[in-house]
């Protein structure tokens, strides 16, 4: 039995944003895998909910003629993993989604919720950062577009106004074509766990075994998911062998994870460096780079 006052079951984006506009305390719910937990814990007890779970246009993965991949925010992790479009074109994102929680969570939790709750450990967030995903935010005033790298404001906060809804996640062809990818979730268990440190790497090999483009992002290395842009820059144009040699040190010099009871800063630095190297290795292999 969950303690919420009322729920609006929105059938369209218009209805949802109207309901949000009408109630400044209302909270968006889709899969419920975050919100219901907070209600149960008492943090959101007695809240008003606006459900976007049944809005058809927010759901599913579409490939458009221009090569853009549009991911509806209420697409579940399981649907993302099993989407033929994702499997064929951005398999790393599907694999990342498949590391979330357990089968039940993946059947209910959504990719939009994963990034919009602003949590640094979100398993799909780092790969979406690397993919330079473009987010569409819709409010009664209209739509605006925000790169996911600009979405995060701070721990648990994204640049979403109260009456605004994430309505599309778009990955453009130049950001996935030619890339190999790897996401490594470092957690204390092999399932049903939260990332102690998440590492996502996208790499596009250039001619002669050189790194053409490298994208590297971490979860739980900072209050929000972050790109390691200095490392990316330093390794661009380097040979794969050099990059493998240098990546761990560069990462450890760049990221600034904090010590919490879950893990120390030193531990996270060790894992981040090591997994950056391993992720580059796997991403390079997937991209068919020369070794």
């Amino acid at each position: 039995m969950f303690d919420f006052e009322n729920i609006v079951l929105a059938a369209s984006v218009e209805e949802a944003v109207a309901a949000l506009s009408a109630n400044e305390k209302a909270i968006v719910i889709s899969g419920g895998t975050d919100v219901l937990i907070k209600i149960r814990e008492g943090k959101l007890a007695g809240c008003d909910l606006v459900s976007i779970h049944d809005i058809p246009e927010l759901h599913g993965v579409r490939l458009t003629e221009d090569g853009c991949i549009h991911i509806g925010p209420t697409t579940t992790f399981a649907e993302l993993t099993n989407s033929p479009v994702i499997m064929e074109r951005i398999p790393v994102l599907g694999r990342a989604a498949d590391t979330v929680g357990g089968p039940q969570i993946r059947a209910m939790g959504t990719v939009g919720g994963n990034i919009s709750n602003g949590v640094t450990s979100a398993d799909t967030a780092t790969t979406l950062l690397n993919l330079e995903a473009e987010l569409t935010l819709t409010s009664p005033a209209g739509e605006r577009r925000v790169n996911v790298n600009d979405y995060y404001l701070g721990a648990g906060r994204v640049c979403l106004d109260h009456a605004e809804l994430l309505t599309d996640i778009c990955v453009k062809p130049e950001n996935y074509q030619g890339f190999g990818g790897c996401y490594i979730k470092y957690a204390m268990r092999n399932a049903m766990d939260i990332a102690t440190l998440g590492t996502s790497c996208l790499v596009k090999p250039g001619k002669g075994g050189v790194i053409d483009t490298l994208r590297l992002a971490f979860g739980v290395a900072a209050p929000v998911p972050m790109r390691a842009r200095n490392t990316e820059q330093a390794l661009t144009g380097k040979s794969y062998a050099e990059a493998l040699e240098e990546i761990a040190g560069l990462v450890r010099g760049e990221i600034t994870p904090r010590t919490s009871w879950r893990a120390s800063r030193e531990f996270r630095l060790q894992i981040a460096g090591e997994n950056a190297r391993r992720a580059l290795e796997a991403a390079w292999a997937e991209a068919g780079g020369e070794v």
Partner: protein
Amino acid sequence: MAYPDIIGKSVPRVDARDKVTGAAKYTADLCPANALVARVLHSTVAHGLVRAVDISEAEKVPGVEKIVTCFDVPDIGFPTAGHPWSTEISHQDIGDRRLLNRHVRYIGDDVAAVVAVDEVAAARALRLIRVEYEELPAYTDVSSALAPDALPLHEEVSDSNIVKQHIYEAGDLDAVRSRADLRHFRHTYRTQPAQHCHIESATSFAWMEGGKICVVCSTQIPHIMRRVIGQALGLPWGSIRVIKPYIGGGFGNKQDVLYEPLNAYLSYIMGGACVRLEISREEVFTSTRQRHAEELDYQAWVDDKGRLMGRDVLVLAQNGAYASHGHAICANSSTVLRDIYNDELATRTEAKTVYTNTGTAGAMRGYGIPQACFAAECMMDDIALELGMDPIEIRKLNMMRPGFVDPGTGIACNSYGLADCIEKGRELSRWDEKRARYAKPQSGNIRRGIGMGIFTYKTGVYPISLETASARLVLNEDGTAQLQLGATEIGQGGDTVFCQMAAAASGLDFERIHIVSFQDTDTAPFDTGAYASRQTYVTGKAIKKCGELFRQKLTERAAARFHRPAEELTVAGDRIADRSGATVVTLADLAEDAFYALDGSEHITAEVTSHCTDNTFAFGCCFAEVEVDLALGRVKVLDLINVHDSGTLINPALAAAQVEGGMSMGLGYALSEEMLYNGEGRLLNGTLLDYKLPTALDVPDLKAEFVVTDDPTGPFGNKALGEPPAIPVAPAIRNAVLQATGVAFNELPLEPKRLVAAFSERGLI
């Protein structure tokens, strides 16, 4: 000795169909839909006195029926341990709890309770209760609790925070200490607080009828539960009725009385209305029981051949805020040290159980032995490494031998499969080959090793406590029979092996024995319940005696009706047969006649008490092969084999299942599970997300093997099996990691943060 064929047969569980189809009824399935709901308000300070509780806002919440606080409940201290009651006052469990406590002693202590029409109203009211505390200094670890100026948490129990302590000494340890020819080893081994993680929460519902308080609850110990509820409420024990349906695991947490007395009290003050009290998983973590964190300061003196000449071990157990099982678990830790290994000259153990302002430790599968075994087995490998010996050889030189009698308890080694277990494990794990291979210098990030550990475990609690069990067999009109016990099925398969033993003893076909799985203390024969790996042994003796009496009564009836000498007749499955094997009468006809004969009806039943004055040692070992990823601090278990000597196996398939479950528990204890408290006494990871119980994807293939012995004291040659499988896994893995990396981890669990820190320090990464 030859036992009837049903002994040693892997018959399917009698409860399998119901449990798989969902037909089996658990506490929540039985609770009336209109029951009131209770929730508990817990202390937010680790140590303090409740000055005031303001319930005025909470009472206004619609749907709230009643709020009781620590100022309202009877001022009766009661014990909670699932121990048999002792008629000797000095041996009785410590009664240091109240239904709700004004003197709160840990974060999570019980301060008030709300009864409401539903969970939402109860939760809303809880959030509105304001408690004013006068804070006292909190002692969140053993050393601060033992500081000379520390306030005693329970003045009525002890003027210090030592719940109890004792010293055992044999031989002249000073003479051993002074010998220059011996090698001296001293290490401190630490084990962590851990939790049972039974799937079903601690849950109950209570109502009154016929002047009695009836409590349906998830417990391992219905008869003890009845007594404790009576004690807690100050009511006659007979006015309490406890019903135990199927339960979703207990592992020792439900060998304690948890929230059932409070639930009974809430129904009582609500005039007997049905009240349900199911605590959340988070409350299970903070406010039920846990495995004791122990620290063992372990010294050994060894000759150059590896023989233990003397040992001196100090065992400190962190007991948390309330006594629960008191000193029994720490005492058990210290006793096993002298049982599993025998010193040539002298042994000294000192054991202290200490109150702290943390969650209460109590019974958990293994009852102090996993902690002691971890220390003992680490020390064996640490010595072997120094002396350049094979870990198996040094154990063989020092471990318990046939004929051993514990000098304190008098428990004898009546059957001995330890050496054979080790040999079997050695062969199955390909120990000699792998140990030699991994002993060669290894380089690179991935390192491999193989390790092992052994253990012994007692069977039941005699002579420390009473061992008693009763059994009843009741003939049905069709010649089948009901088996009624106070012993409990808690998921381990007890009901199935009880039926097998009843069939073996009575001569009835297994299919003719119907177990009454639920215990109702108004009707079930007395038994103290499921703990101490005792039921197949202690209850088994009662079942055997009962079955034999039942057989005798059936044959006597047949003898009387058919004018044959009773001694010529026996029960043969579905009939009474004579010595030639010829059928005298079918059981169906015999039963019909017994119930309905106009010239002499008789309801045939057998009921016995078996007062048990035996105990015996079970044994076993674990072999673990691991691969360590240094850079990521990860231990991958490649191979895990337990070999057990639990005497005769009543049901080999169920025995193997029991071992597999225990091994996965041992694996979590070894690698990932730990309750983390901060300096203020707050549990940081009291959820199943943050408490790292292994999942199916974290557990390797588990190999459960046995060496079958025939224990002369067991009812069918059997001895303890329930708890032992969880014991040897952690040290075996630790010793494998030692071989793989050269790093001796003396603290559990071997989790990545600890490993990475140690490998960094050693320059391995």
